């Protein structure tokens, strides 16, 4: 039948397209490998908030350490590559690998079917047991006991799926950080969290009111594996070394190093807030002040210069410039800053091939965004300067540029100084957003410390205080400046 023939044609066409799509990238990778020497350095992406697999050794220079790191070091040295570690949020790891920022991912990542759609996995190197963590008096010891309860899990983790497998669960809450999970259990917003064994041990160690119950291990889909881009040539090499490590006992040796005694008696810190746990972490957090300030300065300066230019466009009386400035303001004010930040950071390498550093991307995103707001503020400031000032300058033969810089701007600036200070204060605080792309600012460092201490409040309170002091210092500096500018009154 005609219809049948057509159907066959479609199927074969589709198959061809699929073949090309799936082998295309692989072929191109092989072609690259053939023309250039193998890379000496491989970049590993990881989210260092998952001890003992990976965490920031905040007490020692902020180096990234853990079981995954040790395994990666061993494999790469066996294969003759150098290891470089790139740290970022777990949710951004796969995107970073797809944009070519990292060559492989080791971050306690389970080889799920869903992920296999977009990446290739090595053989698993570790099988974790899922564990229920809850308050002491609750007694949730099996998946069945959780029915009707609110269950928490880390967003994007394999335990998320386990949580969904609970029959009649009241709700599954997915949170970004382990520390957030602890907080939700403590505040009774979540009845129990499903996390993996190593995490559960740390959680209960740091929080005396919590207990854990292991679930039976399922070897089939919970295995941690190394993720590679589709068609990566490294998978086979890595698998050989993983098999070797399982044979020669190297893997067991490393496991013992990082899981010294999973059944050790819980130390049990019962206090809700205990600042002594921050001991040793404070210098690490304080280093974030410099990053936050540098970043705020860069974005404020960029925003001010760009905002001034935009405001000049808006009052230029030249239609295309006015349209451009208005469209610019409309777009950057009308879309979320976080979205702009992610787009600039992840899209720049894919579109231009330039691997934009996180701090630069963040400065750019915040500067561009701030310029949109400031252009309106500055325009208002310029309009508020007496028209006669312009006429007097024109009558004296002062050229436009000098007039704007020396006569109009200083007066406009004085008018809008309070608004500018507001913008800087907002920038300091909003800078905490940059932690999502891995800039080691105050917020990021607090997250790291929360992950390594398994305590949720203390680090947050500390950085809240630091932000507050920064804002206080800034406002008093601004007041001094304002007084100086007003001396002509």
């Amino acid at each position, binding site marked *: 039948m005609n219809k049948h023939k057509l159907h066959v044609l479609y199927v074969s066409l589709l198959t061809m397209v699929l073949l090309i799509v799936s082998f295309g990238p692989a072929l191109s990778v092989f072609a690259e490998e053939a023309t250039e020497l193998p890379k000496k350095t491989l970049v590993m992406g990881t989210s260092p908030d998952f001890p003992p697999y990976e965490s920031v050794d905040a007490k020692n220079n902020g180096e990234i350490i853990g079981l995954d790191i040790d395994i990666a070091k061993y494999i790469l040295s066996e294969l003759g590559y150098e290891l470089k570690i790139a740290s970022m949020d777990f949710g951004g790891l796969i995107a970073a690998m797809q944009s070519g920022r990292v060559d492989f991912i080791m971050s306690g990542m389970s080889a799920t079917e869903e992920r296999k759609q977009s990446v290739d996995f090595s053989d698993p190197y570790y099988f974790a047991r899922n564990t229920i963590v809850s308050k002491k008096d609750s007694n949730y010891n099996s998946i069945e006991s959780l029915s009707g309860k609110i269950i928490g899990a880390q967003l994007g983790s394999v335990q998320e799926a386990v949580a969904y497998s609970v029959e009649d669960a009241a709700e599954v809450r997915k949170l970004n950080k382990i520390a957030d999970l602890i907080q939700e259990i403590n505040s009774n917003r979540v009845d129990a969290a499903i996390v993996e064994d190593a995490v559960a041990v740390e959680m209960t160690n740091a929080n005396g009111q919590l207990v854990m119950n292991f679930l039976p291990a399922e070897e089939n889909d919970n295995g941690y594996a190394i993720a590679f881009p589709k068609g990566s040539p490294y998978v086979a090499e890595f698998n050989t070394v993983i098999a070797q490590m399982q044979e020669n006992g190297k893997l067991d040796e490393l496991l013992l190093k990082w899981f010294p005694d999973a059944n050790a008696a819980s130390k049990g810190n019962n206090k809700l807030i205990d600042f002594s746990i921050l001991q040793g972490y404070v210098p690490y957090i304080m280093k974030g002040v410099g990053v936050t300030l540098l970043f705020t300065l860069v974005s404020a300066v960029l925003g001010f210069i760009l905002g001034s230019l935009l405001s000049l466009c808006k009052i230029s009386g030249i239609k295309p410039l006015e349209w451009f400035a208005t469209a610019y303001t409309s777009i950057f004010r009308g879309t979320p800053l976080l979205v702009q930040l992610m787009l600039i950071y992840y899209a720049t390498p894919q579109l231009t091939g330039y691997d934009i550093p996180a701090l630069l991307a963040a400065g750019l995103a915040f500067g561009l965004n701030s310029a949109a707001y400031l252009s309106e503020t500055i325009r208002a400031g310029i309009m508020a300067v007496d028209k006669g000032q312009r006429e007097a300058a024109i*009558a*004296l033969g002062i050229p436009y540029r000098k007039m704007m810089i020396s006569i109009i701007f200083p007066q406009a600036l004085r008018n809008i100084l309070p608004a500018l200070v507001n913008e800087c204060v907002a920038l300091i605080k909003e800078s905490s957003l940059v932690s999502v792309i891995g800039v080691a600012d105050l917020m990021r460092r607090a997250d790291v410390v929360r992950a390594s201490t398994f305590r949720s409040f203390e680090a947050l309170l500390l950085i809240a205080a630091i932000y507050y002091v920064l804002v206080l210092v800034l406002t008093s500096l601004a007041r001094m400046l304002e007084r100086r500018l007003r001396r002509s009154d």
Partner: protein
Amino acid sequence: MINVDQLTKSFGKNQVLKGITTSIRKGEVVALIGPSGSGKSTFLRCLNLLEVPTSGFISINGDELTAPKANVAAIRQNIGMVFQHFHLFPHMTVLQNITFAPTQVKGMSLAEAQDKGMALLAKVGLSDKADSYPSKLSGGQKQRVAIARSLAMEPEIMLFDEPTSALDPEMVKEVLNVIKDLADSGMTMLIVTHEMKFAREAADTIYFLDQGLLVEKATPEQFFTQPKSDRAIRFLEQVL
């Protein structure tokens, strides 16, 4: 020195200047008088293109100001202007107000500009205010600084747009004296004013404007004793 031919200026549908033709020779002091809305200030502001004429022709020393390619900035440097509301730069001291244009526009050295500025301040009687900010000065003092600021560019022509209208009565005299001294020194000047006594004493020529037209052009003696037009007669009846 200044030639004006068929100058008109409209703001939207409102024609403020309806064709003014005149010429002013070097050293002439012209007082522009007339009822409010007659176009005196607009005429003055057209002479340095603060208002762009709708039609007509202006030339200064033979340079056509209204030509499309005229070097307006250069011509403006040669024309000083003093405003009703002074328009001193509030964020600069008195001396900085005076030295800014010579140093930035003419490239004069700061030291030279300051020497010259101090000499001008002495001339207007404000040497002791060099380092004050404008906000600390009285209206009369501000206007004298504004005059010194204009003179610092060494213009050949000075335009005064109601220089005493915003002043308290007791300050009018100190400003008029400065302007009169300037007139006696041979400067070419156009002054929009409501001070009839001053116009009579200081001006060489009176321009009487009404409804956008230059109605009468006469010596002060002629104008104040034997005005020709009905409109001038009625105006003088009201103000004298």
